[in-house]
């Protein structure tokens, strides 16, 4: 009897504990899902009212595919999902019926399977949103010659030689620079008030890719345009989306004495950590990425660098619809409204709006060059990939060295006294270590 009872109790414990495990993860999931369902229906009703603008071609017959690495809970992917939907609506297409959106596709063969599945399902143009998807998009492109594959943020379209593989990327370095100006204004205010003596900035980066290096260098140069002796530390998380690691990196940077934390990683981990530190009496602020961070960091969020992906999506779709040649690499910046920064937070310093205005105007008319060789120095190198003058200013640099053989693949990057970003290909290629920035890992 005792033994049976014991057996029963053990079985029940097991069942209950299983139920508990299942239950906890399920309830959160259910909430997420209802949110998602509510959001998409809202979008769908909006779309229904749009008039299709037919221009000789029946745009309503075109099917579009989209592959995202996370779902709409990630700011980065939300920007892509919204960007493509907006572009389609602008061109008279109905995302509810013409778009096959697949989310949570990891950067592995699942991406290839999905791309091929969408191609077989009739999609004529397929977009993927994460860098790591591109090798699988390339594989799919080589097998489906009549379908156009666009690997957003990728860099292999031109080198692959495939006519149906494309890359797009906005001039994120422009919005990074301007968000750096916002940070610089705040830093200057804190220094003027005597709260901060060391102009020390921290940056949470995802991977040590050119995309990230270009972004933080532009941000740093924006800060330095206001506070010339600023210096910055970069902590990498080795993940595009890891709220815990991003929060921990921000905390580490704050404890080292950073007064401003910016990020190139897709979660709200860093802003949340900055808000928590601020709540504990630390004088520290943050600049986000992709989404307005004021929702999670109301007292410390200054602004966020943002991309308006719809501009790029729309251009590619339009070329596809019109039957004109789709550019292998397409990039656009502030002049095309492809980049922006989010609304300034309450914590921003006096005069920030004017400084932002001036920076945008300068970038638009070309009087401000983000990577002006006069504004930064680098240490000399003996590998030949770049050359500097006696003061450490660049005189020439490789634009691209995709195979790491120290031979320039794609022309000279220094033109008219500046490193020209995003012109020789759409994806960023500025990957120099400039003085004043320290990589912590």
């Amino acid at each position: 009897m005792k033994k049976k009872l014991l057996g029963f109790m053990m079985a029940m414990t097991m069942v209950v504990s299983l139920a508990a495990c299942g239950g906890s993860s399920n309830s959160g999931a259910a909430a997420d899902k209802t949110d998602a369902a509510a959001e998409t229906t809202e979008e769908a009703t909006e779309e229904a009212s749009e008039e299709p603008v037919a221009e000789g071609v029946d745009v309503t017959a075109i099917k579009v595919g989209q592959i995202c690495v996370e779902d709409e809970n990630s700011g980065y992917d939300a920007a892509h999902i919204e960007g493509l939907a907006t572009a389609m609506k602008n061109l008279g297409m109905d995302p509810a019926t013409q778009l096959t959106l697949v989310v949570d596709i990891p950067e592995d063969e699942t991406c290839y399977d999905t791309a091929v599945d969408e191609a077989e399902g009739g999609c004529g143009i397929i977009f993927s949103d994460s860098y790591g998807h591109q090798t699988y998009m390339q594989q799919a492109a080589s097998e489906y010659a009549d379908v156009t594959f666009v690997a957003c943020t990728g860099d292999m379209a031109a080198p692959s030689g495939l006519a149906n593989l494309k890359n797009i990327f906005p001039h994120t370095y422009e919005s990074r620079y301007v968000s750096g100006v916002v940070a610089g204004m705040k830093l200057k205010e804190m220094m003027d008030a005597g709260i901060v003596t060391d102009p020390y900035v921290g940056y949470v980066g995802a991977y040590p890719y050119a995309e990230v290096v270009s972004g933080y260098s532009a941000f740093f140069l924006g800060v330095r345009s206001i506070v010339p002796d600023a210096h910055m530390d970069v902590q990498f998380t080795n993940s595009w989306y890891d709220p815990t690691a991003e929060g921990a990196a921000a905390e580490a940077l704050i404890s080292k004495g950073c007064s401003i934390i910016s990020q190139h990683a897709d979660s709200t981990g860093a802003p949340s950590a900055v808000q928590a530190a601020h709540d504990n009496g630390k004088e520290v602020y943050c600049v986000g990425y992709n989404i307005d961070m004021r929702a999670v960091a109301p007292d410390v969020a200054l602004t966020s660098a943002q991309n308006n992906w719809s501009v790029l999506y729309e251009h590619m779709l339009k070329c596809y619809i019109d039957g004109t040649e789709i550019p292998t690499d397409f990039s656009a910046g502030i002049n095309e409204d492809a980049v922006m920064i989010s609304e300034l937070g309450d914590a921003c310093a006096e005069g920030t709006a004017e400084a932002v205005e001036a920076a945008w105007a300068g970038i638009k008319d070309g009087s401000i060059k983000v990577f002006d060789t006069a504004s930064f120095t680098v240490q000399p190198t003996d590998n030949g990939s770049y050359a500097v003058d006696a003061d450490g200013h660049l005189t020439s640099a490789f634009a691209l060295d995709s195979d790491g053989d120290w031979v320039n693949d794609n022309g000279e990057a220094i033109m008219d006294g500046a490193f020209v970003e995003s012109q020789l290909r759409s994806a960023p290629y500025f990957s120099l270590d400039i003085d004043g920035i320290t990589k912590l890992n």
Partner: protein
Amino acid sequence: MSHIKSGHEPLIRIAKRDAIAKPKAIMIRAIAVLLSLVVSGVFIFAITGLNPIRVYEVMVEGAFGTSRRSWVTIRDTMMLFCIAIGLAPAYKMKFWNIGAEGQVLIGGICTAGLMRALGSSMPTPLLLVVMACASLLGGCLWGIIPAIFKAEWHTNETLFTLMMNYVAIQLTSYCVSLWENPFGSNSVGIINQQTQGGWFPKIFGQAVSLNVIIVLTLAIGMHIYLTYSKQGYEIAVVGDSVNTARYAGINVKAVTIRTMAVSGAICGLAGFIAVAGASHTISTSTAGGQGFTAIIVAWLAQFNSAIMGLIALLLVSLQKGAIQIASQFKLNNYASNVITGIILFFILGSEFFINFRLILRGKKGGEEK
């Protein structure tokens, strides 16, 4: 204890079954699966208002809607099945091998490294053999290390195998940064994309055929090994009682190490299949948590090869269907996790009714649900 009977007989008593007839066990499981579908259906309808039947239809379409989808489902099933086959002997011996994830990765690293190095110089059939052997050895080594420590110094194999996973993940990260292509991308990319050197060749016009052939052969082999061989019997005895095994003159140390060598080697081979037969690249997500999912597969099937295959197929189809309903109904992927959770819960729960029976008050040894 007899006074319990007087007065307060509980409404329901639970008694261990001595044995259960096969058809009855199957019936209980079938009822469980049906019930789980009903409950999931109610859940789907309550939360989303969608017709559950339609949702199930779309799930099936997602897994088997086109011949390509079916083959992808089969390919991923074979991968999970292969790891479960690898885990079966270890678990039968009650050696808690949580390290399949790492063993798969090591097999994957061996395969990817050789594929990169020899892809253009060695003919593919020979290269496949070389890569298979290397991955078997790699996985074997990764399995044997914790087994030796357990046999010689009684270390805790659960923690040891688990921690070996992290070593394997770090090694993979290292190899990825060593082999990255394009330079600076921190990913290896598809290896030999042009030449397809070292990729599984198409057999009968199907790229996945070799995966199926290898895994089904392993499954049959493992079934024979565990059920009919002397070594399989030794594994069962050690698993039931180490003392009995000693008394019977079984060298427990040798059996432990030998079994983990087999277990690790098969998991390593799963890494070979993952790299050469599916992804053609290596990353820290090559094993993708399947080393852990396979534990559920092995246990649910009680190490029966055929049932392991069925459960692997069920889990993979659910996952493929999940992606499809997420896309088609704009449901978050979590929705499908919930459905998978409900179905697994019922299947696990049915094991209770197979092992125990409920006796209502007043009935002597009465029937139960």
